[in-house]
């Protein structure tokens, strides 16, 4: 469907787990490096050296956001690359171990790689989650063997916002001396992370989820952990990732990381703490409570408290997700859904299915994910139109509060 250009400014963007607005400051920081300062950071001249200094600065900023050393950061092209690089590196360094443990709710970047590795002779354990999307740590403990090369668990889930207890998982993993990879794509910039006091060996970040441009990312590799490059090439990134650096992207990522850290740390705010973590959380809570109380037959998907401050995922029974999204779209409201129709596949979200949610909830699930750029006026606007949308679609639906009615009538028709 074509949306006229003029409508774009009035967009209410609540799809920040899909991608985010690039921070203006990040755009400003990168622009000169797209035009004037096009030097190659590897070159032996001042022109290139200037660029190299900026990259160093960006690396320090990302390291600060993650509580890591700059030498532990490798710039990548996206989150998927980080996941691939980390997992392959972990496996390559222990060729005799052929078992991987991960979860059923990972992003396809991890899940599909694991499926491919199964074809290559690895065995993979996919840990289940409960109704609230949580892991059973005893199950994790029981799954580990002497043959286990790697445990790969996401920090925060992109669909529900659920946060896994990474450090408790890490303790169990480290008791057995196993490598630990964490997909931190949804967590970085949304919750504090500190690699200095962590059990994590590999942590993956994607730029476009934290107000940097698409096509940027970073991989944290703990000092001392053996690493093999995924992309083999020159000596860039100290030989850990070949390819001339995406200089403007890296500079923007550095700036975005600096901003994210400022917004995370509320106490020592030089920042307009107005737009802090607490701010985002309060908007999300207002939105979530407003929807759950004004609309009947809906439920929160995910854990109430072990969750990112910006995400809410709600299942609206008896209506279909795509129909909700397109209705929201008419008001310029951007969200996403785990329904089958929106995914392009015919099955609803693997995450919500792994949680064992009923189909009535699965097909009508909507994810709303906020950022510090949202305002309370926007949230009020959403609360105003959302109930009307659900009402209209429920009026159209043959299902209503009691699904038995459908079945009852159906058998009646058949026996006529």
């Amino acid at each position, binding site marked *: 469907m074509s949306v006229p250009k003029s409508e774009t400014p009035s967009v209410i963007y609540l799809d920040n787990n899909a991608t985010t607005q690039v921070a203006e400051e990040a755009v400003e920081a990168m622009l000169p490096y797209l035009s004037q300062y096009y030097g190659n950071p590897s070159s032996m001249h001042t022109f290139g050296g200037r660029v190299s200094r900026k990259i160093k600065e960006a690396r320090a900023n990302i390291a600060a956001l993650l509580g890591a050393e700059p030498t532990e950061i490798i710039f990548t092209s996206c989150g998927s690359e980080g996941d691939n690089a980390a997992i392959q590196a972990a496996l390559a360094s222990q060729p005799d171990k052929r078992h991987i443990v991960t979860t059923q709710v990972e992003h396809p970047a991890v899940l599909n790689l694991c499926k491919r590795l199964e074809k290559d002779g690895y065995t993979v354990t996919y840990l289940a989650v409960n109704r609230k999307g949580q892991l059973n740590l005893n199950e994790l403990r029981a799954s580990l063997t002497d043959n286990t090369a790697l445990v790969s668990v996401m920090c925060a889930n992109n669909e529900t916002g659920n946060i896994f207890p990474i450090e408790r998982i890490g303790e169990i993993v480290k008791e057995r001396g196993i490598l630990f990879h964490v997909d931190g794509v949804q967590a970085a910039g949304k919750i504090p992370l500190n690699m200095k006091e962590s059990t994590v060996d590999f942590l993956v970040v994607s730029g476009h989820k934290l107000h940097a441009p698409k096509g940027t990312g970073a991989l944290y590799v703990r000092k001392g952990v053996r690493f093999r490059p995924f992309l083999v090439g020159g000596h860039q990134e100290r030989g850990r990732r070949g390819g001339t650096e995406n200089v403007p992207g890296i500079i923007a990522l550095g700036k975005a990381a600096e901003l994210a850290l400022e917004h995370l740390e509320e106490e020592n705010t030089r920042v307009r703490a107005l737009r802090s973590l607490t701010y985002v959380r309060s908007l999300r809570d207002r939105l979530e409570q407003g929807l759950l109380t004004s609309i009947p037959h809906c439920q929160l998907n995910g854990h109430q408290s072990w969750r990112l401050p910006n995400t809410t995922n709600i299942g609206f029974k008896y209506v*279909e997700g795509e129909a909700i999204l*397109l209705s929201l779209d008419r008001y310029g409201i951007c969200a996403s859904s785990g*329904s089958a*129709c929106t995914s392009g596949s*015919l099955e609803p979200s693997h995450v919500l299915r792994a949680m064992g949610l009923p189909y009535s909830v699965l097909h009508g699930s909507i994810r709303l994910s906020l950022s510090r750029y949202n305002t309370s006026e926007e949230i009020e606007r959403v609360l105003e139109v959302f109930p009307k949308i659900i009402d209209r679609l429920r009026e*159209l*639906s043959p299902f209503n509060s009691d699904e038995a009615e459908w079945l009852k009538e159906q058998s009646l028709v058949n026996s006529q």
Partner: protein
Amino acid sequence: MWDYTDKVMDLFYNPHNMGKILPNECREEETVAVGEVGSIVCGDALRLHLKIDKRTDEILDARFQTFGCASAIASSSALTDLVRGITVDEALQITNRNIADYLEGLPQEKMHCSVMGKEALEAAIANYKGIPIRPEEEDDSPLVCTCFAVSRGKIVRLIRENHLTSAEQVTNYIKAGGGCGSCLMEIDDLLAQVDGNKKTETPRKTELTASATFPSLHPLTNLQKISLIQQVIEEEVRPILALDGGDVELYEVDGNRVQVVLKGACDSCPSVTTTLRLTIEDKLRDRLQPDRIASDLVVEAISNPIKH
């Protein structure tokens, strides 16, 4: 995001004929037939209500309730527009393609929404007639796709009706194969089987459709094409229209564009025009298969050229 036509979006935002028809809305000679397909598990479901005049078999009213995406809702609405005012037997001639065409097209991945409409229509008519419309599919047709409960007979019919050539298309049209994927090989086998049958069937078909059908492997000459189209219109379209005091005349064949002039009662009624255009198109497609002009044939109904 899906590339929906304006027509789909319009019928999604402003659907026609939503709701139910209650028995107390009927006069004595009228009855309500109900057709239900899909389920909440599959992600879409449609309940169709038809009000039918028992004396004439005319569908007086049609209303729908749909759980599903935008194209499912628009397809349901389109279906109700298409069946209002025609008889039950005429309604049985409507294909899922007619529904898709009425919507000015559906994304390939959404064709199953139009198939759902067609199935609900058949279910409602079966409910009215008190007999199954496709007994052969209900009897001994084993399930091929257990994920979406799709039988062998249904898949074969859909392959035939829509000239499907790949398993991906089958999935787009009836979802079969879109779940665990374990039935995809069997679907491939069915495709090959239908294709094989079609090849051996061709001579037989030539025989059946008499003089004006031509061996399909050679492209038709323009003259052959025109006389074939003329024959279809004479034999299959005009008799139907005559019942309602309408008529149609072949005006021009230009490549794959077939222009007809609607006359009499058909002349000024836009909904009849659309239905009719689709019916002619379908009949022509059927007859011209598998000649290659068939797939992109368009019929245009033009108003009486003499007036201009």
